[in-house]
């Protein structure tokens, strides 16, 4: 009997939920806003799907329906990736300055 690969992915999924649970509880409450913006940025790793879709168009027809949606998704995800990480960095920079002042 072979195990369906889905079960392996599902196991990863469940384990990652547990990892997430413990990791997020250890986040200090004062950093909850950066937590939201950074989770935002990393969930945009969905861009990998968008890139696959966008590159799937044939060379005669770069813009067919499925690749157009791929390109649109790339733009959206890229806004999020750059925006998310940079705004997080900007916020964390503010928290950092503190200790030096003291």
């Amino acid at each position: 009997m072979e195990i369906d690969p889905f079960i392996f992915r599902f196991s990863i999924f469940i384990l990652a939920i547990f990892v997430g649970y413990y990791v997020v509880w250890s986040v200090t409450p004062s950093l909850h806003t950066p937590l939201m913006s950074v989770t935002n940025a990393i969930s945009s790793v969905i861009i990998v799907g968008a890139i696959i879709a966008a590159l799937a168009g044939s060379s005669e027809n770069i813009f067919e329906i499925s690749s157009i949606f791929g390109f649109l998704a790339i733009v959206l995800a890229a806004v999020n990736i750059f925006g998310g990480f940079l705004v997080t960095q900007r916020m964390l920079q503010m928290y950092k300055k503190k200790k030096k002042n003291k």
Partner: protein
Amino acid sequence: MISANLSAIFYLVSGILFILALRGLSSPETSRQGNLFGILGMIIAITVTFLTVGNFSTSTIYVFIFLLIGGAIGAFIAFKIPMTAMPELVAGFHSLVGLAAVFVAISAFKNPEAFNLGVPGDIKLASLIEMSIGAAVGAITFSGSIIAFLKLRGIMSGSPITFTGQHIVNLLIGISIFVLIYFLCSSQSESFFWSMIAISFLIGVLLIIPIGGADMPVVISMLNSYSGWAAAGIGFTLENTALIITGALVGSSGAILSYIMCKGMNRSFFSVILGGFGGDSSVSKDKKKDQKPVKSGNAEDAAFLLKNASSVIIVPGYGMAVAQAQHALREMVDTLKKNDIKVSYAVHPVAGRMPGHMNVLLAEANVPYDEVFELDDINNDFANTDVAFVIGANDVTNPVAKTDPQSPIFGMPVLDVEKCKSVLFVKRSLSPGYAGVDNELFYRENTMMLFADAKKMTEDIVKNI
């Protein structure tokens, strides 16, 4: 071109880097390094995707162009956005993740060969279910976040929109999504796919409109969680470990934040989601008309009290964000510190419009984070403090939550502000806060109300010290 196994290993690496990115947030010192791990994970994931597809045609150039367009917009927003607008920004970003998930699902549906999912009209059953769930949750995230964004931005009124039979309508629509997914799977017909997405957009709107402004911390956290589950759904479709891990992380992160926020208000998650709270709750409105005496003062009185105190606790709330008073506040605290007065800040978990909202604003105003305390850490100190300076907070200081079981906010953890020798309360009027409950604190002997805009009052106090 690299093999599927090698790319799977790299995706795992980027998943782990994302875990480390969140881990870094456990303290401000490690947080910036954590963010760099996150960026590195993202670079690895994107690079590996290019190498795996390995087809460097003209499309690749377009991919880069679109990537740069999006990136430029994102970077521009990130540098320009004022810190007070963070809640809207986060809601806006959630909507983009949701919409991107929908678009990827559409691409996969139209061109399943590109993802090894079968051919159009005969997509593997499991993949079809996974992509439908990803698309549905993504669509709900998108439209829900748009509504949250409009409410936070003030374009749409923050008060709840309710109608009779709302919950039944929502329930029926929710069920119909599952019915459509079922028909989609049995018939592979495109029309079911599109109607399922359309209905998901609709339910996203309907779910968020009944939820009022101050419940937004829960809503934002919940949408954060949804965007994660949408990503995970797509991750299963694409059989991509990085996406599955990330989706699970983000999903549980959002869920935990929602839980913390609900606990901060002592309300069940469902009562928040069902909405309607803080509308025109007319119950308490009439009986409190008996004009209790209120002591009000001006900036000079406040300055006098503060100058003669030896310890002060500042309690900021959403009103501080609205008035952008954080810099003026910091100036005031600096002046007090010069007079050898001990100052600390008390932040309630649900102060503001998103988790950690006050902390970011105070950090922006250069307040050292070790002077800012959470509810549990500081609540005992109020009793030995001379002055509590409440600026823009209301419900989170109301002693009624501890004394009156009839009150809608009974049981909510509150800051014991009334235990201070005197309380300065900066507020525009005596109107009740979000919960529609009159704040008993206004009428206490030791409370002095300062009726003014938070920023202006703070500046005036600085002048008078």
